[in-house]
């Protein structure tokens, strides 16, 4: 009996010949990636709508004039300082999340726990800052469907008629609260998910399972939230 296998009977082992994930990624993780892609579409649609409305307007409120305060410390004359702090907090909480993932690869439960708690704290700090920012703008008179009176809007613009200033300020307020609100909602759900994962780490769920893959999956979501903020920050505060 011949031991040579004819070519047609050979077991194919290429990535796409079946029996395993061709991407070499676990199912839940790949689904998280595609969810994030769909979420990226949603955020892009919102931001592109903002861009289109802004392009079509003659005048637009200047961001460094709108965002002038550090709530509780400086009332005026500190453009973009507070949002800089928020950006830094979110980047830092993203870093603690990668460190949690990195510790997970080594099955170092204590380290994962510590970095996850740091990430949750970072998330709460960001949410707190955003609440202060919203409160400040609302106090000034901006909200969905309402803007400050004309004489208070004047200093946000370099020109344009009063009626146009009123209209674009209203568009700015609606878009700002909708988009940062949608992002803030993502941060909030991210914090909730992070807390659940942290509790599971504490209980030893992943230690028993032998892998901290779940931390990687929520990590993807958390980095995505940071990624979106990078764009929101540029298009609302810098451009």
């Amino acid at each position, binding site marked *: 009996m011949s031991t040579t296998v004819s070519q047609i009977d050979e077991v194919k082992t290429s990535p796409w010949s079946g029996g395993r994930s061709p991407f070499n990624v676990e199912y839940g993780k790949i689904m998280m990636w595609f969810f994030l892609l769909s979420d990226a579409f949603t955020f892009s649609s919102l931001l592109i709508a903002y861009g289109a409305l802004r392009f079509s307007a003659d005048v637009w409120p200047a961001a460094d004039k709108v965002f002038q305060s550090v709530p509780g410390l400086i009332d005026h004359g500190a453009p973009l300082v507070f949002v800089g702090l928020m950006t830094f907090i979110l980047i830092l909480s993203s870093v603690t999340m990668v460190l949690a993932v990195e510790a997970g690869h080594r099955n170092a439960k204590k380290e994962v726990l510590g970095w996850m708690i740091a990430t949750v704290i970072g998330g709460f700090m960001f949410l707190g800052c955003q609440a202060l920012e919203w409160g400040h703008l609302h106090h000034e008179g901006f909200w969905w469907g309402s803007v400050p009176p004309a004489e208070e809007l004047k200093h946000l613009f370099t020109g344009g008629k009063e009626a146009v200033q009123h209209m674009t300020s209203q568009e700015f307020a609606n878009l700002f609260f909708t988009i940062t609100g949608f992002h803030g909602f993502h941060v909030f759900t991210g914090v909730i998910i992070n807390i659940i994962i942290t509790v599971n780490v504490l209980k030893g769920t992943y230690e028993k399972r032998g892998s901290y893959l779940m931390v990687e999956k929520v990590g993807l979501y958390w*980095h995505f939230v940071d*990624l979106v903020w990078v764009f929101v920050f540029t298009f609302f505060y810098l451009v």
Partner: protein
Amino acid sequence: MSSAESHEVHHDGEHESMSKKRIWQVAGILTLITCVEFIIALAIIPSHPNLLKFANPVYIVLTLLKAFYIVAYFMHLKFEKMGLILSLVIPIIFIIGLILVLTNESHHWVDLRPAF
């Protein structure tokens, strides 16, 4: 940074992708880019208003650079299989398409705005 490096001695090279040192390097790059954006917005533009038209393209390039570092290193996409990378990056064409369509469209909205 130095404390992270001292920890790293025990387990470097174990993961081909993201060592602690690499993580802090990427974090440093992200912070640096953000600082550059602030310097442009708060120091360069107020004193040189004629450079304003160059500012926005620079912001967008810097933002895309930050996005690359977050997705490639923090989200680990750079180290995944090419098939997964392509299946996530190619659909971005739809976003670029919407940008092109709506920026073009917005030039016509100017005429639709009420004349006060």
